[in-house]
């Protein structure tokens, strides 16, 4: 007698309340209250790190000043996601790493305001080196979804 091979379904639903730390708390505060993006300066490497960290991961020196960076910069790389993944937005949508003017590192964010129906055309707008600007949400919560990028 052939026995049916059984399966057991399990779902995990976990909640965490992560402390983001002093540095990230200040970063998000400036975004939420003042629509400003700040990095932190490493005095040894002479680099502005965005998003800011309490220490430089190149030389392990504590970062010092808070440095305001521009709300505009260049695309370092970008991709368009065309397939659905659970809990992620309905495709297509674009993701980019952008180096804002004044920053020495790039930061990630969604890219909106592009017609994604023709992928080749859209990827042209998202070419490395193209200028891009930061747009802030009206209803900001104090996290990385408070802003996204749009082509200049």
């Amino acid at each position, binding site marked *: 007698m052939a026995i049916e091979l059984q399966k057991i379904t399990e779902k995990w639903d976990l909640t965490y309340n992560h402390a983001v730390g002093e540095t990230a708390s200040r970063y998000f505060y400036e975004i939420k209250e003042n629509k400003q993006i700040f990095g932190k300066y490493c005095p040894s490497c002479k680099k502005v790190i965005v998003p800011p960290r309490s220490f430089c991961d*190149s030389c392990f020196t504590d970062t010092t000043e808070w440095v305001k960076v521009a709300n505009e910069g260049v695309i370092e*790389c970008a*991709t368009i996601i065309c397939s659905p993944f659970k809990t992620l937005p309905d495709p297509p949508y674009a993701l980019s*790493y952008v180096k804002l003017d004044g920053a*020495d590192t790039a930061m990630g964010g969604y890219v909106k305001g592009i017609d994604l129906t023709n992928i080749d055309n859209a990827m042209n707008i998202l070419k490395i080196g193209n200028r891009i600007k930061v747009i802030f949400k009206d209803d900001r919560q104090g996290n*990385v979804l408070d802003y996204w990028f749009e082509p200049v």
Partner: protein
Amino acid sequence: MKKRNVAIIGIGQTNFCSKRDDASIYDIVKEATDIALRDAGITREEIEAIVFPLAPDSLAGVLNSERWCVDSTSARNKRLIRINTGGSTGLSAVQVAYYHIASGMNNIVLVAGADKVGESGDVQIIMNKIWDPIYERKLPLTTINMLALSAIRYMHKYGMTETDMAKVVVKARNHASRNPHAHLRKKVTIDEVLKSRILSWPIKLFDSCPSSSGGAAMILASEDVAKKICIRPAWIRGIGQSTETYYLGDRMGTNALNDHADAYALSESFKRAYKMAGIVNPVKEVDVAELYNPFSNTEYHAIDAAGLCERGESIKLLGDGYFDIDGEVAVNPSGGTLCTNPIAVTGLIRAGEAALQVMHKAGDRQVKGAKVAIASANGGDHQFFATAVIGQDY
């Protein structure tokens, strides 16, 4: 460090597929272990220590399944350690087993594990969790788009095209068609790859590894044991490991430490393995390379990092057939990670396939006259890179 020579004397792999509805991880680990033991010609009683590769737990959905699999690996009353370095876990586990023997602590060590990536159904949800909740996780980051971003930069730096990526897939499937253990074995054409649906541009479905389930195992032994019981052991001549920084955004821009296009830390890892192995001219001295390549574009920067050519040169050389199974240096004659990716053991399979090649036990995928093989595995957000040099001699 005065060390003893360490050999690989047995390898076991199950036939990889999407789902193993007939077996749990507990059964599959035993299956792979049994195959390796038979291959080595030793018994469970002779195993002295076990190294269990597993990362992350949430793909198979059982936390610390090395505990459940204590029976499958016959670890009762023996030394056991579980290793987790992301996707490079399997090869890190081989390195840890190497240390057990090289140090003189043990003479026979089993490395065994399994994964059920196909059973998960939520792979990219899990992968998204590797990013920190503070700055990166709310972005739609997955391992697919992380490496699509690398492809974008590699295209910009070296002129790689979508067709160049497709050529890697064509080669991989050709090779995998000769490998009975591989998951994706069906040959494809460049056109079929280019027409497959886009996941994250430029990575398309056929440019991407499958979600594989199955197990793999390996027996390592000291020189005395290997020479006594193995006709042609595979000797671990060198191992390397290096680590990249965490933030993707730091690997871009003109002041970048290491460009996200490349695999700088992998090249450092290879330098260390080559130094230990006494390899000075990889192109001339290496016959086979099993390089971790979960997406087609990543094979290029892996070949570059292995020092088999200058950065970016791999594109033209691959197109010329230089890295085919019968080319100058066979790259991924097993079909590679692109055709089979049971994440916890993928790195172990790289070393296993490298060993099979120099032992001349690689069946239809045997590279003629293979004497020296290299293996690599990547983990984390393009952060952990393990490498090994495996040869007929030590």
